Every structure is written in structure tokens, then in C-alpha cells.
């Protein structure tokens, strides 16, 4: 009986989308021009990534030694590299790789970081050990830790994802832990505990939803950082294997031909900037929208 009532209520909420918080949030985001430019850039990048096989005019790995280092032409829109590979096709497939790496790093680091943060913030004994380990990992500059991990793991797309995820897990964990420490002292968590609700249930239903919004913002920023991280690792030659079409790889090869073939630097460079700028703009917009602390501050400022 009770369940039916629950469901009916749920149904009403779904049927009235104009009142749902998600819809309100999306509408508020739509009003922010800068965030919209960011969203537009991100969406464009995702589309290119998905449609890469269709957009690429050639196999990004196909060699054509006779046409090596050709300047941009009608056949090769972005020119060719030192092995005669079509740079346009490589840049487009590079978008695919960037989105794959960025998305996977966000997925792994956010889910693992959430678990560590929830456990650390809720169980004080575990906290000490967990956070010391996180502090230890954060004592390395991110790129250095990633390089060191790549040294042991060896070059591959999967290992780049793993190395970058390990770099960003502590950042998510610290953030989540901070919000859990606040939420666990609230009256409703105390009430839930007094009612005898088991800990996992309290964590999932009452604590987690109240810690999510800063993580969403952090997620977009980690996405941007992971795109940059992959590019940097591959540029240095310790990221994905050389044959993989990656923006960092094209830049790394292009460095040797900077004078003869500047398009090898300019084309993937522009792609990186567009992708990262979009993610940063979108993340900034989300932060203004979702961070209640910041929103309170702004409201306070207006009052003054």
C-alpha cells in the first residue's frame, strides 16, 4: 500500500518537469552565455569523436612516404606528417582518443575517489590511514607521478588511463571527505542513525546525494586535466604508443619539423585548446551554478 503511494507521488513529480530541480538547473545553465559556449565546444568535440571514422578522410595510420611533410592541400586538409600520414584524419581520431581517455579517467577517479572519500569521512579510524596515503600521492606534482607510473606500466592507452586516474583519485577523495565531514554531523544523518538505518544505507541515500555537486564540477575539471595529461605524456613519448593517433603524439613528432611543417604543431594545438577551453568554461559555469557556498556568497554580496 505504502509503496504504491510512494510510486504515485514519484509519478507526479516526473509528470511536472517544470518543477524538477534538474530542469531548473539546466535552464539556469542555459542562461549563462559563457557556460553555453563551453557546452557547445564540448558537444562539438564529442560529436567529432563519435563521428571520427566517418570524418577522417583516410586511415590515420596509412603511410604515404611520397607525400611526406606535404603542406595543407585540398586532399590533405591539415597536411601530412613525416611518414606521409594524413594529419586531418589523425587530429580527428585524436579527438576520439582524448574523449576516451578523459571520460575513462573521470569515471575511474570519481568512482574510486567517491568510495574512499565516503569511507574516510564517515569512519574516523579508516580516515587517518586513507588520508595519509592520499596526502602521499598528492605530494608529487601530477605529471611527475604520471610519468613515473608510465615508466613501470609501459606505454598503452589503458595504462595512460590508469596512471592519470591514480593522479586524480586523491583529489576527488579529499573533496568528498570534506563534504562528508560536514554532512555526517547534520541532524538528518543523526536521525537516520537513531532510527537504526544501516550504515551503507545512510551513506548511499543520505550522505552521498549531499556531496555530489562539488564532485560534478571537479569531474569536468579532471576531464580537462586528463586531456592535457594524455597530450603531455604522449608528447614526451611516454604516453600512448607512437602509432596511435593522439594530439600529443602529433605534437611530439611535429616538434622535430617545427620549421618545415608548422601545421604539425598548429593543427593538433588548436584542437587541444578548443577541447580544454570548452571543458574549463563548462566547468566554471557548473561551479557557479552548483556550489551553494559560492551562491550564498554572491547573494550576500548583493545584499551588501
Amino acid at each position, binding site marked *: 500500500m505504502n509503496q504504491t503511494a510512494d510510486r504515485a507521488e514519484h509519478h507526479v513529480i516526473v509528470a511536472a518537469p517544470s518543477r524538477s530541480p534538474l530542469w531548473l538547473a539546466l535552464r539556469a545553465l542555459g542562461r549563462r552565455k559563457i557556460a553555453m559556449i563551453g557546452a557547445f565546444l564540448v558537444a562539438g568535440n564529442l560529436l567529432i569523436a563519435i563521428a571520427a571514422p566517418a570524418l577522417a578522410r583516410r586511415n590515420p595510420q596509412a603511410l604515404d612516404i611520397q607525400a611526406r611533410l606535404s603542406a595543407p592541400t585540398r586532399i590533405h586538409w591539415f597536411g601530412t606528417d613525416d611518414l606521409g600520414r594524413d594529419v586531418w584524419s589523425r587530429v580527428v581520431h585524436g579527438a576520439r582518443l582524448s574523449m576516451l581517455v578523459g571520460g575513462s579517467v573521470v569515471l575511474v577517479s570519481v568512482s574510486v575517489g567517491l568510495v574512499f572519500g565516503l569511507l574516510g569521512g564517515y569512519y574516523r579510524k579508516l580516515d587517518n590511514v586513507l588520508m595519509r596515503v592520499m596526502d*602521499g600521492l598528492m605530494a*608529487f606534482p601530477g*605529471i*611527475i607521478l604520471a*610519468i*613515473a607510473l608510465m615508466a613501470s606500466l609501459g606505454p598503452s592507452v589503458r595504462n595512460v588511463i590508469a596512471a592519470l586516474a591514480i593522479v586524480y583519485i586523491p583529489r576527488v577523495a579529499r573533496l568528498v571527505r570534506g563534504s562528508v565531514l560536514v554532512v555526517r554531523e547534520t541532524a538528518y544523518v543523526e536521525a537516520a542513525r537513531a532510527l537504526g538505518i544501516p550504515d551503507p544505507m545512510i551513506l548511499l541515500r543520505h550522505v552521498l546525494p549531499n556531496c555530489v555537486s562539488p564532485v560534478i564540477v571537479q569531474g569536468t575539471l579532471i576531464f580537462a586535466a586528463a586531456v592535457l595529461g594524455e597530450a603531455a605524456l604522449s608528447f614526451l613519448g*611516454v604516453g600512448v604508443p607512437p602509432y596511435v593517433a593522439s594530439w600529443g603524439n602529433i605534437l611530439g613528432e*611535429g616538434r622535430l619539423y617545427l620549421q618545415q611543417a608548422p601545421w604539425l604543431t598548429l593543427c593538433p594545438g588548436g584542437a587541444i*585548446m578548443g577541447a580544454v577551453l570548452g571543458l574549463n568554461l563548462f566547468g566554471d559555469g557548473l561551479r557557479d551554478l552548483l556550489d551553494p557556498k559560492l551562491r550564498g556568497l554572491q547573494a550576500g554580496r548583493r545584499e551588501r
Partner: protein
Amino acid sequence: MKLYILRRVLAVLPVMLVVATVAFILIHLAPGDPASVIAGPYASPEDVAKLRQRLGLDQSLVIQLVRWYGRLVSGDLGDSIFLRRPVLQAIVERAEPTLLLTAFATLVAVLIGIPAGVVSARYHNSVADQSLMVLALLGISIPNFLLGLLMILAFGVWLGWLPVAGYVPLEAGLWSNLRSLLMPSVSLGLVQSALIARITRSSMLDVLREQYIITGRAKGLHERWVVYKHALKNAVIPTLTVVGITIAILLGGAVVIETVFNIPGLGRLIISAVLRRDYPVVQGVVLLIAAVYMLVNLLVDLAYLALDPRIRYQ
């Protein structure tokens, strides 16, 4: 206060323990037997066995770990497999360009970031403010190695004003040294100045709304005096924390920038060590950079204490 300082200094110890352990684990993360990986596919079984013994890999993990801590305490980072000399010596030989590069880049970041932030806050919402912030946003979105490549293209290749790449050591003269480090430091520092400008601007905007600023203006102080004497002093404190982070990021960035400009520093050392699987060198450089990072953060915290009396009395 002395207690606080002591506690802050002691808090570094567990972090250092974790850092040392992470560096130790690195060598064991590699799939398969580290000794045969390091020796390469063409090594004979005897060579692999010899190497395993030399690296102490024939012992149990616990014994290896304890020995590792012991060696670190006595300052022994082991020997490089390829360079045939102690890792510490290799690091010392390569440290000069990296440290100079990091220092100059920090200088660039601070000298551009703080004034840009102050101007932006003082003329809030003006054209200058908005264009500076758009620039800062662009700056955050461009990776330092890409900016380096673009600068080489513009100033080295097209205009021919500066050397395209290479490093002139300090011994060969301050002027040539500065000239060779100019583009690397700017490309590294400029990106970071964007972050500093954003932080300075927001903390300056907060401070400019404080009561004592209103008082200052009400009693007829010159606006310039209010901004630079009263507001800036307080607004710079949060910026200082960011400078600490900045130095760490720049140290990491220097490693990447060195590849762009062919500078023989710690970055080239660690990258070539990674490619040759020279694990002791990788471990040594990683440990050293983490140690410098922790030291900088400690110093920033202590400086914070000296600058902001509110923290002292908590």
C-alpha cells in the same frame, strides 16, 4: 605557536613515508620480473641474475622495503643502471637548469599574475577587467608545452629574435644563460600567471568590500593608497598559498618544457630514464621532486603564519 610549527613540521613525516613507499612500489608495478625488464630482451640469464642480486630483488619484499627506507635515511639513492654512477650525482649534475627554469617561471607568473589581478579587481567589470579575465581563461586552457612550441615558432623561426632551443649554463655568463631560458620560463610562467591573476582578483574583490576599506575611503584617503597600501597587503595572502602550489606545478611543468627546448635538466633525465627503464634514476628524480614540493608547501604554511596573525591566535 611553537607547538603549531612543531606539529606542522612533524606532519611531513608520515607523508614522506608514503612517498618513499610509492617510489618503492613503482619498480614492482611493472608486469613480470623487474630485473629481466630492466636488463632488456637481449640479456643473458646470468646477466639478469647478476642484476637481480645487485638491485636486491632476490630478497623478500619486506626486507627490500626495510632496506630501501634505510638507504633513503642515509641519503643513498642507488646507482643508475645506464649512466654508471650514483643517482644522486646524476641528479646534482642535472639540477641547475631545472631549478633556474622553475625559479624564473615563478617570477614570471607572479610578476604578471598579481598586477593583472589587481588591475582587474580595481577596475571591476571594466573592459580591461573583462579582457584580462578572458586572456586568463585562455591561458588556463593552453598547455605549457604547446605555448612553448608556438613561441619557438613565432620568436625563433619566424622572427628569429631568440635561440630556437638549447641551454647555456650559468658559468658561460649570466646574459646568455638568461637568453636561453627566456622563452622556456615565459611559456611555463605565463600559463601559471593566469591562475594567480584569477585568485588575486577574487581575493582583492573580497577585501575591497571590507569595512576598513570603506573607512579609508570615507576619511578621504587617495584611492591608490587604499588599494595598494591597505587592500593589496591583505589580498595577497591567499595568493601566497597559490604561489606554493604554483612552484610545484612549475617544477612538474619544467620537466615537460625541457623536452620542448632541449634543456638538459631533470626532465630530460627522467624521460630518458623512463625510456631506458633505468628505474633507480626514475625513483631518485621522483623522490627529489616530491621532497622539494613538500618543503615548499611547508615553507608556504609557515610564511602564512607569519603574515596572517589571525591564524596565530587560533
